[in-house]
Structure formats: C-alpha cells, structure tokens
C-alpha cells in the first residue's frame, strides 16, 4: 500500500481493490481520523491537528485482505424486480428475465463505496454476464428506491435524482434518512442481498 500526503491534513492510501474493506475497517478502528472515505482502490483519510505519514504507514502495514474475516453486516433488502429496463437488460444479456432476476438475487454483493448522492452506495460483485454499460441517454428523473445496475456495480437510488443506470427493480425501504441516527442504511463494507418480493 502507498500512503501519500493529500494537502495539509489528509492522505490517500492506494491499495488493491480486495484490500479496501479491511483498510477501511482498520482506519475507522484507529480513531485517528475525522473522515475515512473508501473508494475503488483507495482509502482517503482526513484528520485534525498533526499526524505524520509515517504514523499512517505504520497503521496500514498490518492490514491484509485476510483480516477481512470479520466481514461487514449482512443487509437484506426486499425488492420487486419490476424495473423499466428489465426487458432491455434481458435482451442485451441474452438471458431470460427470470434468469436475470435469479442471478441478481442470488448474489451476495459488497457495499464498496459511496458517491453521487447521500447514501448512494456502489455495490460490487455483479456477475459478469449482467455487466452492461450505462444507458446512452441518462434519465432526468429516477425515483428514489430504484434498483439499478451499470458497469460492474449495482445500487439503489436513495433519493429522486437524474441517473443513467439500467433500472431493474424497486424497493420501499428508505435508503437514506438524514434525521435518523444512522442516516444511510448501507455502510461501506456491508454485504448486501436483494430479496425478491411480489408487492
């Protein structure tokens, strides 16, 4: 892992994608940082006061993917596989709709990192056959609770927003609630399963 200073009170730690989760946990547990922001193959850390890069290097040196034995919580989210793009997805993947649903709902995903909007969590683990590019023309409005896929990710839109991902379902679960003690249902590192329901 490479630790590089990022401005005055932050550092960017580069690692392998399979090390992000363990590195994220180690940084959180150290209680040294005001922010710990995992992404695809980096973890950004921010602090107040003085902290040396050497101190952070020491912290990360003990992190290996193996310590990921204590994996994140398993969160199950009930969804209706009724998305507007489901027919298109079936056509483009050459699979039947029921096969798409079966594949997606039998996968255990990992919430890798957040971005785009509060509580929007990029989940990894999408079977290769379901990996499709985003739509050529994004939608102006995607309703909150839409289950979507694009590239190597799946995610639920937590709020009404524009969006270019392929919509495959909907959930009634509130993904983000700013007034809640824990505003985001998903946190980086959580394991996620989508459970099909009929209504």
């Amino acid at each position, binding site marked *: 892992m490479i630790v590089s200073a990022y401005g*005055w009170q932050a550092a960017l730690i580069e690692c392998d994608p399979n090390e992000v989760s363990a590195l994220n946990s180690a940084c959180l547990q150290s209680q040294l940082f005001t922010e710990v922001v995992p992404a695809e193959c980096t973890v950004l850390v921010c602090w107040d006061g003085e902290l040396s890069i050497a101190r952070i290097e020491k912290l990360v040196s003990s992190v290996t993917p193996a310590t990921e034995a204590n994996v994140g919580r398993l969160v199950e989210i009930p969804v209706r596989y009724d998305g507007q793009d489901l027919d298109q997805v079936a056509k483009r993947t050459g699979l039947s709709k029921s096969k798409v649903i079966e594949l997606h709902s039998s996968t255990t995903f990992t919430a890798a990192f957040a971005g785009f909007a509060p509580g929007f969590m990029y989940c990894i683990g999408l079977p290769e056959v379901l990996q499709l590019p985003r739509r050529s023309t994004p939608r102006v409005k995607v309703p909150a609770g839409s289950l979507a896929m694009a590239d190597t990710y799946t995610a639920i839109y937590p709020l009404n927003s524009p969006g270019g991902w392929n919509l495959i379902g909907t959930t009634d679960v509130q993904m983000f609630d700013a007034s809640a003690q824990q505003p985001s249902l998903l946190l980086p590192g959580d394991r996620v399963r989508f459970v099909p329901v009929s209504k």
Partner: protein
Amino acid sequence: MSSISFSEAAGFITLQDQGRIGFANIAVPTSGAFDQSAHHLGNRLVGNFPGACSIESLRGSFKFLTDTDLVISVTGAAASVQINGREHEMSRAIFVAANSTVAIRPGNQGLRTYLAIRGSILGNLVMGSHSYDELSQIGTPPIKAGDQLSISNQVAGSISGDYFPNFAVSGQAEIQLDAKPAPRWSGFSNGQTLFETEYQVTESSNRVGMRLSGPELIWNSKERLASEGVITGAIQIPVDGMPLIFGPDHPTTGGYPVIAVVSRHSLNLLAQSEPGTKVRFRKAR
C-alpha cells in the same frame, strides 16, 4: 425562545456552521462556512462557541426584526449594516435593542458576508449541523422573506471589544493561493503550468466548486482513473483541462484527477473572489 423575523431576503442567504463531520463515507459533504476566517471572527466578536451558526449571505439583501435585545457582528465581504436606518461598522460587536430592524445590503467588494448573533442562531439541526448543503440540499433551507429563526442563549465567553477595520478588505482583484501537489500530480504532462501562469475565476462558481479558466492542464494517461475520495480545496481537472477547486459542498468522491490542494487560508480568499478575479498558485510544501 427569542427570535428574529425576516421581512426581506433576496439572494442566496444560508445558515452555516462548522459543517457535518464524519459522513463523507456515505457521500454527505462537510458543508459549513466557506470563508471560515470571517465566520469564526464573527462568532468570536460576540462571544460564541466556535461551533455556532452564522448567516452566510452571497451578496444578498436582507432585513429582520428582533423581539429581544441582541449583540451581532457582521464580517466578511463589504456590506452596509443598518439598525433602524442608522449605519454601523462591520467587524465589531454591535448592540441591537429589542424591536429594532437590522438591514444588510451588499457592498461592492467580496462575495460572502457573515452575520453572527450572540447565543447563536438556530436552524434545522441535520446530522450535527445547521448548514445548508447546496449539493445534497439538506440542512436549513435558504432564508426567505417571512422566515423566523430562533436565537439560543449558549455563549462561550464575553463580548469582544476588538475592532478589525482592515478585516473587511476581502475580494481583491488578484489573489495568490498556496497549493500542494496532490498524489496524482505526476500524471499531468504540464503540471508546472499551474504554478507558472495566471488563471481567472469564472461565473460557474458556487459552494460546490470554483471553476477557473486559463491554460489547459493535460492528464497524461488514457486510462480512466478509478473514483477516489476528494477533499475541500482539491483542484480537480475535468476533461476540459480547466481547474475546478472544490468548495465546502463538494461531492465526496470523484473520477477526475486532482492535481493539487489549496490551503485553508486560500479557500477563505476564494470564498470572496468574484468572477474575473486573477489567481496565481504558489507551490507549498
């Protein structure tokens, strides 16, 4: 509880404090006062805790009536401060008697004026902060005519008799910013250009980011950079090669490379820099 009632509010007028700390991992920006030096000075003058809220006015005009005695301060970008029609100075504590009207009008220098009230202004406390976040649209909504805000009585210390007449000089025509090369610096083929030429603040600037124009900065790699965490003050270079400096309401992750990061003091200067301001970067270690 004591309160102030707004009879006029025109422009982008929001409540800001120290922001939301510790939520970047769920894509919630820090937010908070853009010009922190003006915001902190204002709170210090009236004896508030550092975490107190102030009104951040982007060249807005507003007028409020108070139902209680107040001590206020106005700092940051030049503004006219009138109490019951009489002009008062900026950058010092001012006593305001109950049933008085306070009117703030923008001046001709700088962008963001801060108004602090002894005891702190209260808005909607969302995730530990009253701040309005322009990107996620959470926190206290921007102030409009007819709004009423409560004033708390949580003070940290005495009112300051200090006066900072020169402090109001913000929003110069030319600014120098201290910037440290960021981890992706070496991926630019002409990174040194950032420190050798002049840039200008453009119209497309807000609390999310300040867009500059000037010589193009060229990212070497053809490969897509994986999304990574970004911080306030990061200078991101999107596909057009023009610097975008992240303000307090910036997105928490981004896929365009960051060439350098400006200092906290530089951000305070940027918060007051109107379109057309000339910008030079100085390399910091």
